[in-house]
């Protein structure tokens, strides 16, 4: 990063290649599978990273600095957009299932489809903290830095979000089960 700040802008290509899939996957998950938007937002993140590279002080890791930009970009995008999805289960599950790999056995595929739908029904910040939890290069301490809170608070929020996700997931699964029975 020091060399990018010194004017070797092209070095950002290396960081882009290293982090583009992680950043893109983050957006793909927080936008509930909107590929086009995820590509646009990923582009914005790297544009800002080049433009504002001087704000990287080197105190934390590059990954946490980059995801702080991603987090703010997602917030900007999400501002004014309230998730108002309801449990229109069957049709949505079918559409999600179409994207799943054939390797997954049927039962598992249905569960994954239900889980995708459950993720859609979380609030943005709940979904985001779960997604952050799954990013391999970020530790709890770094997630806390990105969100401007404490490590303990991140753990609590993550656990609560996970619990809520599980409750919605169970609800969808039982609804699906009821529909199949009838």
């Amino acid at each position, binding site marked *: 990063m020091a060399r990018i700040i*010194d*004017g*070797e*802008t*092209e*070095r*950002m*290509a*290396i960081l*882009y*290649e290293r982090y*583009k*899939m992680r950043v*893109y*996957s983050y957006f*793909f*998950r927080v936008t509930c*599978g909107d*590929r086009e938007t*995820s*590509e646009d937002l*990923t*582009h914005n993140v*790297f*544009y800002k990273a*080049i*433009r504002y590279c001087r704000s990287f002080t080197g105190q934390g890791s590059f990954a946490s600095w980059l995801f702080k930009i991603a987090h703010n970009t997602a917030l900007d995008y999400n501002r004014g957009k309230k998730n108002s999805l309801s449990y229109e289960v069957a049709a949505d599950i079918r559409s999600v299932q179409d*994207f*799943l*790999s054939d390797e*997954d056995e049927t039962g*598992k595929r249905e*569960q*994954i489809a239900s*889980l*995708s739908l459950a*993720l859609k029904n979380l609030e943005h910040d709940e979904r985001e903290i*779960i997604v952050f*939890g*799954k990013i*391999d290069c970020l*530790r*709890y301490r770094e997630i806390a830095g990105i969100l401007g809170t404490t490590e303990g608070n991140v*753990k609590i929020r*993550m*656990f609560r979000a*996970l*619990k809520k*996700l*599980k409750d919605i*997931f*169970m609800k969808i699964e039982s609804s699906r089960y009821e529909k199949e029975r009838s």
Partner: protein
Amino acid sequence: MKKKDRKEKLQYLFKGDLSPDETEELNSELKKTGSADDEIDSLGMVSELIDRVSVDEPSSSMDQRFYEMLADEARETSSAGITGHRSGRVRSNSFYAGLRVAAGIALFLLGWFMQSWFGQRSDPRDLAKLSGEMKDLRETLVLTMLDQPSSLERIRAVNMVSQLEKADDRIIESLLNALNTDDNDNVRLLSLEALLKYSGNPAVRDGLISSIKNQSSPMIQLRLAEVMVALKERKAAPELRKILTNTGMNYTVRTRINEAVTVLL
């Protein structure tokens, strides 16, 4: 194990921060405990399912946009040497720009032909022939771009290689050449990363080993040492030892390369 500990460990399991032993211990604990801990058990299941939700691959236009933006930004940066010409390799930019446009149009037309033929003809030989021609053209474009004076163009070329399903000998040779002779560290490093996809090819392995002596950048020396350890390539140990004789080598780099040599021997 107390319920609170299990909860804590579950959080670390979710984050992927538990060792295999700790994961096993947690799993057996979860199995042992009764219905009171069903909740924790189901949270574990949900966490596992999240990992299996697939993410669509981004389109190639994402990379294209990034590299175009990077080229614009690099142009704006006034620091010397960013997009400078390499010694002895000055080319006519307009000629290559024209060539790229022509190759792009040809790729588009071939794609269009393929699509229309696909609808009208069912002979797989025609399709295979066209597909082969398209691949050749894409490879030619990569080779042309790898020879460009602008380091950004060469970076884009290496990036295009990583999108190819399979690279032929010409591409491999060009990548090895870039790794050995390109005067830009970034191009060399990205070429190395692109070559890793073909590390099963003995020629690539030998090429990587012999490139060790040509590297002066600590970043690339370290990466090559890591790669050799990952590939368990014992033949690389003497080459790594040779670069250790360089007295001006950074202490950290020296230590890590020494460690790599020890592992390989």
